[in-house]
């Protein structure tokens, strides 16, 4: 386990030694801030309008601000993931440092887990930028904190899944641009799967829909912790890391 932590810390350090970490955080804070602004503005406006018309519509911050915001964050994350994972293995393959890792007394899975954890921690830092906005909701309103926590858990699980897939793609090439591009395409595809099958009620449609990353996030956004979705994400993470380790082993044989 120490080895995993050593690799993980090294990954985190190199993210923060380059502009990439700060760029991602700033980018996410900006986009999420914009989403937050529109969501709260509409919420407040809606409140005014319903009061002026004398209707007593029930208002709920969790339902009307946080839930769409979390959905928005999950979509934005989809675009950020490739930038996090593209360098994971591709860079080390290019500079030859992978040779150092693979000739050190450390297992392949320790390398992979360490790198994935490092990427996940960076992703958490990026997500953490949204805490500023959420904290504002707590300062001026009384949202329920439990659904928020579950929503963030969903974001983390979804992120972990995409990071594992991205890590795999990064092992297949020396070129970071290709790794990033392919990861982006795969993320997009997994996201779009739910659209393609929205009106398809056949058996295939159900299967394809099930594979979509987004469908499983909807429950979390609502604040519902469904073991079915948790298991989906966890097994996807495991699958992603597993094929990463297979790919790394094949590196040795092909090299």
């Amino acid at each position: 386990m120490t080895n995993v932590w050593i690799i993980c810390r090294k990954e985190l350090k190199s993210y923060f030694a380059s502009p990439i970490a700060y760029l991602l955080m700033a980018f996410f804070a900006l986009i999420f801030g914009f989403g937050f602004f529109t969501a709260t503005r509409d919420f407040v406006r809606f409140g005014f309008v319903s009061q002026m018309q004398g209707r007593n519509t029930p208002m709920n911050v969790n339902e009307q601000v946080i839930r769409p915001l979390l959905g928005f964050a999950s979509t934005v994350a989809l675009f950020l993931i490739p930038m996090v994972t593209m360098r994971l293995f591709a860079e080390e393959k290019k500079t030859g440092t992978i040779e150092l890792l693979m000739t050190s007394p450390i297992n392949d899975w320790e390398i992979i887990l360490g790198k994935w954890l490092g990427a996940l921690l960076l992703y958490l830092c990026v997500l953490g930028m949204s805490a500023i906005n959420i904290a504002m909701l707590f300062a001026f309103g009384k949202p329920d904190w439990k659904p928020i926590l579950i929503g963030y858990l969903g974001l983390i699980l979804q992120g972990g899944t995409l990071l594992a897939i991205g890590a795999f793609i990064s092992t297949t090439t020396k070129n970071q641009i290709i790794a990033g591009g392919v990861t982006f395409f795969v993320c997009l595809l997994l996201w779009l799967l739910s659209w393609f099958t929205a009106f398809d009620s056949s058996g295939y449609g159900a299967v394809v829909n099930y594979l979509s990353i987004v469908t499983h996030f909807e429950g979390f956004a609502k604040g519902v912790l469904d073991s079915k979705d948790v298991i989906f994400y966890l097994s996807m993470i495991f699958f992603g890391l597993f094929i990463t380790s297979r790919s790394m082993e094949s590196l040795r044989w092909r090299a």
Partner: protein
Amino acid sequence: MIKVQGLTKRYARTVAVDNISFEVEKGQIVGFLGPNGAGKTTTMRVLTCYLPPTAGTASVAGFDVLENPMEVKRRIGYLPETPPLYPEMEVSEYLTFVGRLKGISSADIARRVDEVTQRCAVGDVRSKLIGKLSKGYRQRVGLAQAIIHNPDVLVLDEPTAGLDPKQIIETRDLIKHLAGDHTIILSTHILSEVEHSCDRVVIINKGKLVATDSVENLTNRLRGSEAVALEVASANGPLDVAEVQQRLEQVSGVSRVLPRETKDGRLAFEVESLQGRHIRADLARAVVNSGWNLNELRAVGLSLEDIFLQLTAAEKKDKPVEAPAEAVQ
């Protein structure tokens, strides 16, 4: 310490290493000599457990690279051809990372980093970013990385490639200093490098073992036959190339006379001697006695290419035996 038996590594279409066997004893420095693409790097990668062998076995300190890779990796320090450095790290930070990776406990790590920075003379750049270092410093950081866990065996892939002459000498000295405590395998395509620092030589060419021998034996064997550049001019009138060549060939101990170029009546030759014969004095006498002027007479060192030609030619005649006494003829 290191035992390689029948090692073969095949890539998709090519055979990189073909049935190589050799042994290295504890504390020796072994030079791995061969032209580019001979299979040096591949052999080293198998030894360091980076690549699995296609056939044959390799073991380090009694541990097989396939069955016990963890134990092998623990005992090997490896400097690949391009040092595996992270440009965004500081030198001490990098060495700490590698040290931890190699299994040094957090209590010992600071002391070890101090030791290797001192040993490899990188103390003055400890807190510099690796990306900002010069090639020579990078190489030394790479070497520091390889010895940080005090391994039994050091595998160095072309440790002096791309360095300037001063750095080459420094690196050589450093390697020599390390020799006492470690068994070292280093690869190179420079012959003098092997002469300077190695006890034994393993020569490979096109994936095949050409010779393994001690440095003295090998150099004697190779330098045993002498090559001499000779320039002859006539005192009066033009000279006939064939005539001079014939005269030179009659000198005892000469194996071959190759005419080079002819310019302004001066004839140049390259003369090779038989094994263990010194022919320069006789050549000079022969030229002078024939009434010609001897313009130039100098020994030509055999280049690595010549040695390879000789050794591979020898290989065709008789099988690659371990240190055949008269293989060169």
